[in-house]
């Protein structure tokens, strides 16, 4: 956009920025308080806490697992909906909104009920892997939207038929022709999923697992200044993830990635 922003625009922009920035600045200020002066002791305390690193790593692994599972499920599904079942689109779109409508607490109770049957192996139920299917459900809206936009920007039918007429089977068509052209969407969905899992509290809490978000909650209830420091740290991590999307998405030869409208 090369349009010039009028002066009134700058005023609104400043008000908007202040709305986001003041609480952040206040939190940062609070995290640096040390007795009557300022210092980094709260940050040191958090970073030295072995639980911080363990749980960050746990949540990181959960996020990766969720991303892998959702990509494997949703890339072919959305492809098939676009290619062969366009009439199912409204249904899929409706389903994709459900995770917003159904509270996570309902989801987790449902999962606990499903897993109570005997044949679910212990190595699954007793570890944080338990959370992955639930997270995949929660990530569905984000993954679906991101992939849907990508699939819409290419001519799925013609590309598929062109690949087939040249002798390619379904596997090769999907991997070599379709996937590279929706990679931007898959990536943007992945980062959103990453941010989601790194911040998901309810399910982990109800299912009695310790993850990074439950750790944030725990610190928040027990230690005021380190909690503020932790907030700033996790804010920074999320920002890095988003910057990652924009950076990768701007590589030439790929479709542009957008995160909630930003490019």
């Amino acid at each position: 956009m090369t349009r010039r922003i009028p002066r009134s625009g700058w005023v609104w922009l400043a008000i908007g920025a202040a709305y986001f920035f003041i609480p952040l600045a206040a939190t940062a200020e609070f995290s640096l308080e040390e007795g009557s002066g300022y210092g980094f002791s709260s940050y040191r305390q958090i970073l030295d806490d072995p639980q911080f690193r363990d749980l960050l790593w746990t949540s990181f692994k959960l996020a990766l697992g969720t991303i892998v599972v959702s990509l494997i499920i949703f890339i072919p599904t959305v492809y098939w909906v676009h290619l062969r079942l366009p009439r199912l689109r409204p249904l899929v779109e409706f389903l994709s909104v459900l995770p917003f409508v159904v509270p996570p607490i309902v989801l987790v109770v449902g999962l606990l009920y499903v897993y109570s049957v005997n044949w679910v192996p212990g190595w699954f139920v007793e570890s944080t892997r338990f959370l992955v299917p639930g997270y995949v459900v929660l990530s569905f809206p984000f993954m679906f939207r991101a992939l849907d936009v990508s699939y819409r920007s290419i001519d799925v039918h013609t590309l598929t038929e062109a690949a087939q007429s040249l002798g390619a089977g379904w596997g090769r068509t999907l991997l070599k022709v379709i996937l590279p052209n929706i990679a931007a969407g898959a990536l943007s969905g992945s980062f959103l999923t990453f941010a989601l899992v790194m911040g998901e509290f309810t399910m982990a809490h109800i299912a009695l697992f310790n993850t990074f978000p439950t750790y944030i909650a725990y610190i928040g209830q027990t230690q005021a200044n380190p909690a503020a420091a932790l907030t700033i740290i996790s804010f920074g991590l999320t920002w890095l993830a988003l910057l990652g999307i924009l950076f990768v998405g701007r590589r030439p030869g790929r479709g542009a990635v957008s995160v909630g409208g930003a490019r």
Partner: protein
Amino acid sequence: MAYLELQKLHKRFGDFTAIEEIDVALEGGEFLSFLGPSGCGKTTALRIVAGFERPTSGRIVVAGTDLTNVPPNQRDMGMVFQAYSLFPNMNAEDNIEFGLRVRRRSGAERRKRVDELLELVGLSAAAKRYPHQLSGGMQQRVALARALAIEPRVLLLDEPLSALDAKVRVQLREEIRRLQTQLGITTLYVTHDQEEALSVSDRVAVLSHGRIEQIGSPGDIYNAPGTPFVAEFIGTMNRLEATVGDEGEVQVGGTLLPVADARGLPRGERVLVLVRPEILALERADGAGASGALLGEVVAHIFLGAITRVKVDAGEHELSADLPGARAAELPVGSRVAARFPADAGRVLALSEQPRASGEPAPAGP
């Protein structure tokens, strides 16, 4: 011997009948066009040959082998689509190479073949360019090269020029024909553009409502349309409603015109006399009663470059005559003229809209 056969194809989508019946055979190396308006079933027929659609009934046979139930990726048919079919993530070279990779050709062989094809379509300099860096015409050349790279048994083209500028369209269609002749590849071409079909094909099949109305050489189709639909669809045609009179004569309005084609038709039958505008001759009619000619008044001149189309109001009919510019200038708007045509140039069709393929008996009605 027939190489590609579309045997009694019939296709329904739910209640909608896309193809009533198409039955045609192509000789090896032949270039056949399916020509018709949108919705006539031409693209569906092509997609059935490619394997993207299954016929409701009928068979696709190539070189004696029934391919009706063979999936599209095992048919060895090259296909060029309307547009946007190049893989956006691959450059021109990689697009052309794709089919060869699928066939597990060696690296050296692939490179050699890709270079050959790039040269064949005149794009050696653009080998490394991505589809979005190529013009529409170049993209279609790459698509053609990609389809030819696999040495397909049949080449299928689905309105490959419809998204291009007029000039590129003419250039590329000549090139397609040149390559097709050079490689001797059996080709099925789908288009709604009659000029395109007539200019490149060995034979043209005119389709309407899921049936072949007429099939023949471009000359046959143009000069001897077998049905009113074909007459209307191909080129411009003067249509004169007439009644058969005495041997070799028809009556249009109150005028008797000699038309050889009317010979043998029962007296009094309602017919349509078709005359091409380039056949119709105009002359100044000063007095009344030029026999064997239609009288009228010039109402408009349409400049078409090499010729001028002169519109004549002849009572119940409006006639078009294509004249050289200088000749048309002698007949300004408002002139009284007599329009006539040689007795052997008019084509007579019965008004019952019965398809009557040239040289063949009329098939039974539906």
